[in-house]
């Protein structure tokens, strides 16, 4: 490679004529010449910008050539610059002094131009080699000190000659601690003894199964713990001696990972053998590639049969497309859980819950599905639902029966009072009147007033019976229908309470089934009773629409209202005997809508199919 930078040569001579001559010769040889006229100036220039070579006159006044050479060789930046001394004589004495002072080359005065050029060229080349060697040595040093692996050089006696910085990290020793000592301190027994026999055998026979190969060895750390190492040995000879270089890599972490992986695999194998749930592994095409042992017991397929199937083949044929779509979703969501029905080899159906996960190993996607048989749970749930439905149906029947029985009891009691008790009283009253009229005038006032007391009692009793009857069972309801009964009840209610009640009926002529009429009437009564108890209302409006089915009964008041959400908090009193309005409506297959707000009155709407 051609040097682009010209070689700089510093010429040092106190004699101006001689100096000019040397400068001319240097330049003629193709170098760049710099000139200094005394030792002090020369040292100053060389230290500021070290030249590639120095041409130094020995005989100078003040600081002479020997002193300049000594000073240059003592200073680190200029130490490597080769010095050629110019001596007046070719005497042995001054050359020896020059060598001692550090000069590399000599030339005698008078200087021969050709000889100077040739010697100068050699000198510069030498300087280049020196520089290159220093650079490479430095490079090697940097490389070794930054290597993660320990590099240890030993001689044939196993003595450590060199060690890089990594030995400290791996073995705990500083390189200086190892150098000069036996390498076997880094080996535990029995490796130490084996090492000796290996070396012995190699040195005597040349047989080696270690040079150039890597193998795993056990090392000994400074603090006594064992190390997993990978060792490579290289050999070189220098000056007739054999040197071995060992490169040691700490593979403890790698061993640990390998161990864990192996352990994990063993766990997976045992899981696949023993898991109670069925585990399926399948690939991106849905093909089953592994199954847990329980799959065979649950589904009845052999392992080989499974491995020839797709995971979606287990679904019921009707839901296979859906199943595949679900698995497709897995590619996006990585993990999901769903329920569906599978089919066994013998055709039996299974209700299963599937928890599926996507796994990616070396950029290949696998899917893992854990299938849990929930058939038992589902059967139990269905059975429970059936029981509940039956119980609820029976409860409904009982409640309806209760309502009917209650209504029947009311009817009978009211009939009894009306048809027997009330006429009895009327008969007594008439007979009493007859008796009173028949009393002789001689009878005292005492008897007359007693008779009047009795008549008053009978009248009061009759009134009370009439009120009880009206409450038990409106005779008008049977005779004239719901509208009439509501209107009469409303009138009596208004008279009693002072609350104005209006009753509006659309298509009042239409008679409903007796049971429905009495139900609606009861709800109407209950609503009015509640209004009186709680609402502080001044007016109530009731509308009945029987034009279509469902029949609608609405009762609204202008009272204080309430927050319907709070109703459940206080158990409602058993208003209408045993059942409240909502239950009554629902038992009849209808519904009740309650709307109210504090300060905004209350509205009850009941809709029942007629």
């Amino acid at each position: 490679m051609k040097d682009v930078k010209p070689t700089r040569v510093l010429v040092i001579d106190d004699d101006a004529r001689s100096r000019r001559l040397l400068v001319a010769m240097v330049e003629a040889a193709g170098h760049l010449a710099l000139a200094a006229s005394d030792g002090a100036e020369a040292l100053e220039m060389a230290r500021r910008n070290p030249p590639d070579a120095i041409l130094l006159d020995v005989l100078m006044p003040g600081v002479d050539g020997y002193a300049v050479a000594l000073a240059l060789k003592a200073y680190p930046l200029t130490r490597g610059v080769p010095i050629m001394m110019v001596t007046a004589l070719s005497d042995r004495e001054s050359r020896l002094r020059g060598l001692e002072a550090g000069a590399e080359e000599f030339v005698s005065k008078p200087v021969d131009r050709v000889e100077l050029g040739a010697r100068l060229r050699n000198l510069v080349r030498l300087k280049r080699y020196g520089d290159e060697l220093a650079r490479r040595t430095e490079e090697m040093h940097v490389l070794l000190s930054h290597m993660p692996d320990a590099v240890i050089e030993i001689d044939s006696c196993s003595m450590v000659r060199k060690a890089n910085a990594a030995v400290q990290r791996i073995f705990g020793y500083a390189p200086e601690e190892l150098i000069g000592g036996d390498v076997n301190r880094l080996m535990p027994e029995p490796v130490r003894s084996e090492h000796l026999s290996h070396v012995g055998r190699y040195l005597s026979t040349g047989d080696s199964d270690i040079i150039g190969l890597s193998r795993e060895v056990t090392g000994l750390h400074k603090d006594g713990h064992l190390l997993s190492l990978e060792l490579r040995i290289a050999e070189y000879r220098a000056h007739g001696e054999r040197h071995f270089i060992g490169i040691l890599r700490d593979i403890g972490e790698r061993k640990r990972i390998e161990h864990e992986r192996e352990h994990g695999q063993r766990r997976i194998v045992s899981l696949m053998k023993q898991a109670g749930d069925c585990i399926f592994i399948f690939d991106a095409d849905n093909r089953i590639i592994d199954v847990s042992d329980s799959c065979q017991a649950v589904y009845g397929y052999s392992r080989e049969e499974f491995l020839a199937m797709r995971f979606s083949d287990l679904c019921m044929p009707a839901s296979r497309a859906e199943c595949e779509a679900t698995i497709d979703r897995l590619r996006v969501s990585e993990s999901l859980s769903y329920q569906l029905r599978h089919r066994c080899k013998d055709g039996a159906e299974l209700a299963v819950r599937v928890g599926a996960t996507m796994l990616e190993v070396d950029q290949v996607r696998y899917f893992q599905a854990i299938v849990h048989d929930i058939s038992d749970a589902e059967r139990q749930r269905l059975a429970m639902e059936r029981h509940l439905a039956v119980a609820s149906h029976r409860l409904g029947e009982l409640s309806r029966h209760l309502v009917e029985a209650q209504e029947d009891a009311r009817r009978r009691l009211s009939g009894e009072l009306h048809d027997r008790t009330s006429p009895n009283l009327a008969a007594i009253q008439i007979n009493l009147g007859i008796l009173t009229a028949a009393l002789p005038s001689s009878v005292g006032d005492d008897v007359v007033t007693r008779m009047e007391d009795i008549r008053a009692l009978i009248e009061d009793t009759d009134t009370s019976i009439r009120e009880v009857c009206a409450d038990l069972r409106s005779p008008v309801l049977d005779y004239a229908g719901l509208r009439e009964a509501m209107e009469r009840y409303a009138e009596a209610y208004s008279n009693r309470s002072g609350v104005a009640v209006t009753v509006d009926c659309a298509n009042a002529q239409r008679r409903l089934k007796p049971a429905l009429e009495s139900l609606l009437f009861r709800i109407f009564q209950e609503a009015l009773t509640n209004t009186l108890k709680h609402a502080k209302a001044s007016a109530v409006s009731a509308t009945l629409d029987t034009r279509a089915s469902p029949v609608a009964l609405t009762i609204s008041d202008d009272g204080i209202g309430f927050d319907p959400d709070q109703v459940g908090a206080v158990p409602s009193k058993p208003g209408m005997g045993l059942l409240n309005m909502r239950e009554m409506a629902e038992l009849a297959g209808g519904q009740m809508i309650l709307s109210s707000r504090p300060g905004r009155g209350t509205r009850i709407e009941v809709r029942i199919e007629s």
Partner: protein
Amino acid sequence: MTRPLRILLADDHQMFRDALRGLLASLPNVEVVAETDNGLDVVELAKAASPDIVCMDLGLPGMNGIEATRSLATACPAVKVIVVSAFVEKRYVLDAFDAGAVAYVTKIDAGNELLRAVEAVQCNQKYLSPRVATLLEGKLSEPPNIAQLGTREGRVLQLIGEGHTPAQIAELLQTSRSTVDVYLRNIMRKLDLPSIAALTRFAVDAAASLGADAEL
């Protein structure tokens, strides 16, 4: 002497029928010519016995009193029907009159009221016993009529007006406290007074006006 008034009793309650017969027997020149406990027999009996008046219960088996009245109005239009019923319901009263009845008397008041009704219908008037009249008119716009009160009731009202407590009244009338309460309830109902307070106010006003009348 005029022909006796011929009456047919239609009521399924025998004791009440007996009581009515006894009541009517106290009137001069009245004869109960036939009785039945069934609505279906009314027309046949009326044709056979030619009554002037039929005392008709409404809750008759076979055919109810209103239907029986309607049939009778067609078959024997001259026969006057007085309904004697335990029902105090507007609808029954209206339907009964619609079917052709001319009077409506509540059973409990029949002791006095049936006789008044008989008198009224004999003069071709229609008659409603007070309880029924109140029902049809709603609340009376006229001031309550104290004439419908009995002797003892009037006395209790007077004592209230004079500022006596029910306990004092019981003592004065030599009767029990609960009997006084019975009277108070009966008065309130007859005069359509909604509360004891209203009754007291009415009694005080009545006492004052009676006092004023006495001074005139």
